[in-house]
Structures are given as C-alpha cells and as structure tokens.
C-alpha cells in the first residue's frame, strides 16, 4: 500500500511529526528537519517566563528566610501585619495587572498562599486550639472566590491540594487511619480531570485548555484507585487489616469495590468520552502495573512455596503472565480510537 504525496509541496510541521510518529525517521532526523523549517533563536519566551518564575521564587524565598531568622524577636502584631501587608500587596498587584496576565495570576496565587500562612501564624500566636483540618477547611473556603475568578489552572491546582489536605486531615483527626478516604480523594481527582476536560472541549483554546492539569489529576485519581484495588486484593488473599482501622475493616470491601468502580469510570472518561490518547496511556500504564502487582500478590505464595522447582517454574510462569498483561495493555490501547484535537501548547498532539 502506498499513498500519493506531492513532493514539490512545502514541507509542513505535520509532515515532520507524521514521519517521526510513523517511525520513518529517527528523533535526530525530526529535530534536524524542524531546525530547517523553523529555526529558533537561542532565547525564546521560555527564558522570559523562566526568569519571571525563578526571580519571583528566589525573592519570595528570601523574604520567608528573613522572617524566619527574625521570627522569634517579632511581636505578634508585627508578624500578622507583615503577612497582611504582603497579602494586600499581592491582591492589589493582581487586580492592577489583571487576571488575564501571567503576572496577575502569579500574584493571586501568592495571595492565596499568604491566606494560609496568616491563619497558621494566627493560630500559633493566639493558641486557638483549632485542629489542622479546620485550618485547611477555612483556607479552601476563603480563597475559593478568587480561585474562581483567577482564570489559572495553577491556582486551581493549589486549591485542590489544599482541599485534599483538608479531606486527609479531617479523616485522620476525626476518624482514623482507614483506607476508605482514598475513595473520596480519587473522586476529587476524577472530578477535577472530568470537569476541566469537559470545559476545555466546550471552549477550545481557552484558559482551561491545558492538558497538564488533566494528566496530573487523572494520574492522582488512578493512584488512589489502584491503591484501593491493590489493598483489597491483598486483604482478600491474606485477610490483612490495618491495626488502627476505626471500622475494624468492615468497610474495606466496599472501599475496594468503589475503587474498582472509579477505576472503570476513569476508563470510560479517558477512552470513551474524551478519547484523549495521553489520558488513555496513563490509564493503561497504571492498570498494567496494578494487574501485575495483584497477580503477584495473589499467586506468589502458591507458586513460590514449592521449593526450587516452584522458584524455577513459578518465576518463569509469573514472567510470562506479566509479559501478557503488559502486552495486553498495549493491544487494548491500540484497539481504541482517539481524537486528534490539539490543546493549547499541543501537548496531546497525535
């Protein structure tokens, strides 16, 4: 089978990507052709953004170090006043620069961080007796309005981290060490992935249309679901319980089942609904590792308990099964079709 190509036509970026993607030219060849068609100067906008991030981070770190050095000599009102000053300065700067600009967004994120710092210092000075989860809860509530307005996925990431910390601390401080909390964490991750991907699809090239956010939160959600399923398999096989489980293990089967269900929901979202290749690859990779680990957990004792012969053939058998699982994952992925839409930055380019 051959295709018709007009070789007098100009070489496009799509041509180069296609040739590399199909394995017809090596990576070095792809890079060479791109240098020919699209020569770049040494310093691009990447250097501009990098210097902004590095400069701002170093300056903020310097300010934090300065206060850390003088902290114990400062009066309470000075500590809170300085933090408030920084907070107000960040907010004024963010409003002045505008939330459509990267500097304005960075200042808004700085303000959100300082809200948490203010609450922590306030609790330290006045010994309010509040639990850590109350701090994270109030922090997530107070910054939520300007997170909504910020038009920044980095700001949403910060909010999600604070919210997840609230869930974890409220669970640990009010309930105990049970694994069931992973269900809620997986749900939050999946919601973040699903909502952002949906909005990005509805409004392409908008501020929500960045793949890194969906990949990070999908990976987070799948880590939680994989942990739940793996733990459940281990429990079914060996009857293992956490000593400090507040429910004496009675909800662990339900948690394992919920983890499996959420894992399948993630499959539906990545493969069927959004048809995003990288999300599907993340799902396949985590699932292959999970299945292999579950197999090893469930069968290792039977296979390896038969002395030298058990070791010899058990090891070979397990290696064969693992090959099958990973290869099955690759074939499973290949059996699906994915969309070729480019997100901003072209990160999910096919």
């Amino acid at each position: 089978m051959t295709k018709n190509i007009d070789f007098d036509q100009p070489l496009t970026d799509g041509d180069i990507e296609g040739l590399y993607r199909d394995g017809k030219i090596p990576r070095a060849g792809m890079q060479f052709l791109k240098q020919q068609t699209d020569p770049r100067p040494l310093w691009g906008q990447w250097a501009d953004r990098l210097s902004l991030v590095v400069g701002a981070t170093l300056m903020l770190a310097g300010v934090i170090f300065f206060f850390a050095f003088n902290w114990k000599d400062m009066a309470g009102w000075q500590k809170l006043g300085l933090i408030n000053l920084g907070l107000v300065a960040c907010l004024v700067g963010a409003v002045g620069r505008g939330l459509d600009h990267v500097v304005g967004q960075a200042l808004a994120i700085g303000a959100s961080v300082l809200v948490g710092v203010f609450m922590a210092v306030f609790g330290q000075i006045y010994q309010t007796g509040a639990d850590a989860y109350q701090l994270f809860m109030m922090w997530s509530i107070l910054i939520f309005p300007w997170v909504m307005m910020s038009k920044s996925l980095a700001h949403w990431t910060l909010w999600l981290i604070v919210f997840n910390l609230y869930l974890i601390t409220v669970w640990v401080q009010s309930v105990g060490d049970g694994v069931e909390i992973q269900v809620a964490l997986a749900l939050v991750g999946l919601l973040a992935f699903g909502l952002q991907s949906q909005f990005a699809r509805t409004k392409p090239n908008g501020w929500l249309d960045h793949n890194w956010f969906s990949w990070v939160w999908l990976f987070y959600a799948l880590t939680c679901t994989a942990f739940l399923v793996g733990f459940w398999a281990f429990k079914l096989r060996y009857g293992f319980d956490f000593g400090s489980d507040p429910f004496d293990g009675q909800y662990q089967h339900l948690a394992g089942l919920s983890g499996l269900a959420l894992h399948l929901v993630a499959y539906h979202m990545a493969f069927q609904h959004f048809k995003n290749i990288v999300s599907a690859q993340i799902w396949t990779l985590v699932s292959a590792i999970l299945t292999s680990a579950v197999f090893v957990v469930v069968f290792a004792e039977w296979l390896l308990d038969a002395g030298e012969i058990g070791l010899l053939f058990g090891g070979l058998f397990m290696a064969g099964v693992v090959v099958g699982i990973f290869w099955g994952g690759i074939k499973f992925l290949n059996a699906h079709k994915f969309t070729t839409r480019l997100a901003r930055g072209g990160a999910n380019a096919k």
Partner: protein
Amino acid sequence: MLSREQAITRLNAYGVPFSEEQWTNETARKDGEFGVFAIIIRIIAGLFILWMVSISIAGFIALIGQESNWQTVTGIIGVLATGFAGWKFRHSYNTLEKQYGFKGLLYLSLLLVGKSCLLVALYGWFDTWPYSSDGGWIVAVIFSAITAVSSLFYRMYLEAFLALLVSIFLLDSALASNFSSVAYPAVIIALVLGMLGLIWRQNRHNLSSVFLYATVLFFGYKLLPHWGQTRLLFSQGEVLGLNFSVSLGVIAFAATLSLYVFLIGGWPKLKSVQHLIVIVGIVILAALSVDGVLLAVALMAMGHVRHDRVLWVIGLIYLPLYLVAFYYTLDATLLTKSYMLMGSGVAILLGRYALSWIVRPSTAEVDHA
C-alpha cells in the same frame, strides 16, 4: 520554504537514510507504539520480568545444586541471553517498528536479564562490589566495554540507555574508590569532548541521542553541590576543591564564550546588547560557582534551539535542584542567605525587565514558547 523533495535530500546529506518510497509507504505506528508511553511501559514491563526471571534463575541454581558455583551458572545464562537477544536485534529486529512488537518486548526483557546476569556474575567472579576498593573498577571497565561493544553490534536504544547509565555510574564509583585526583582533569575533558562530539554526531544515528541524554544526566548529577563544594568526580563523600587561577578562568571563559557564539550563530551576532547582558550573567554565575545553574539553563537553551524537548526537560528538572542545593549547602547564616536570595531574585527580575525592553518577542516566537 523547504519542499518535501529538498527535505529528503537534506536529510540524506545529514546522514539520515530516507527516500520518497519510504515516505509513500503506508505504514503507521499505533498509539501504544509511540511516544513516552511506549518507552515507559516497556521499561516497567522489562523490569517486572527481570524480577520474576531472577527468582527463576535462583531456583534453577538451587535445583542443579550449584549454589557454590552460582557465578558461573549466572554468567553462562548472561552470555547466552545477551548473545541471543543481541543477535536478534542486529539481524531481525533492527527497526523501531519491529522492536516495538511483542517479540521485541520479549527480546528486550531477555537482554535486560542477560546484562543483569553478566553484571552480577562479574561481581561474583571478582568477589567485589561497586564501591569496593578491591577490584570494583575491573568490573566497571569490563561492563562498560560490553556496553560499548553491544552498542556497535546492535541498536536497541531503550536497553542502550539503561546500560549506558549503569556503566557511567559504575565507572564513576570505581574511579572514586580507586584513583586519585590525577584522573580528574582527563575525565572531565573527556566528558566535555564526548558531549560535544555526541551533539555533533547525534544527527547520524538513533543511539547517539541516547548517549547524549545519559551523559547529560550524569554530568548534571555530578555538578550538584556537595556542602558548598563541587562534587564532580568523586561520589563517595570525597570532594575535589579546585583552586581558582587566572589561567583556568580565562580558559573556561574562552571555552564558554566560543560555545555560546556557536549556539547563537556566529561572532557578528554577539554585538547585540541582549547577548552582552547574557554573557555578563554567565560571568556572574560562574564567579559565584553556580555552575549547575549554568548547565541547566544551557541545556534548556540548547533544547529550545535544537527542538529537543528531552534536553529542555532535563534542564528544567535540574534547575530547581541546583538552586535548592546551592542555597541549602551554602555556608552562611539564614539572614545572609535571605539577603542573597532577595538580591538574586531582584537581579533576575530587573534583568528580565531590561531585556524585555531591548528584545520584544515576535508573534512567531510567542507561538513557539
């Protein structure tokens, strides 16, 4: 504007064999056989399989009653597995398309098993271990030679990358335990020349990218500050204090300037204020001995120019590591560190502000960011 026909001609002149027939050939890799995913899933699968097969080999040695002679058995398995898989990759599985198939995955796993067995057997034969001062370097040299010969005999870049990384780190630990600082200049010059040579040769072969990335990763690791001193060659807590001398400084400056001029496209371009500001920045960073930061930024700049995202990402990963390590290991009070941090932050932001007035990025440039 470059036509497709001209592109083929230039690729061939560059050393990449390619033809119109290959272009029109209707072959396409599938989603599971492309990109970072294809690499990661194969490496993880290979390591899982290596773990299982190791159990199996242990069982085999116990079954034939050769526990006291395990090195020989493991070595024979290593030679057989490496030889067979290497032969396959040389003759039948020498294209990426085939290497990404099912049998390609099996042979990759076999190669990982074979090389691991060879390495373990070598340590057994010489009764030593990586950081041991008794003969650890012999194993490092033999294994590195095996890696070098393998790279010439067949092309399997995933395995080559892992083998090269292992070889470099083994050589490093062996040198740390066995040689004095006399070896230092030779090794550093060899590394720098090797890196430049690899960048030059990268155009011609698939595997040269692998060598470049492995060397860069290692070089970056060695430049991480070690309690205020550059660790460079010695990883066993031994550090090498280099006394600054004017001649050394002049040589280093001339070398860096030449490399920079090469990257920007020639001496005439050096006249612009933008490049002069950058060179002043380089000199300041060098004077502060923040060589790791210089390397990270240089990698990102080179990655940007060469459309090499991997090189750019390596620089991006190393940059915060160097910055944190630099300030963390600085022998100064918290207050001094805070002034230094604030000062350097303000200097960078002012430099950025000044450059933004001198150089306004074009629309095309914004699109490439």
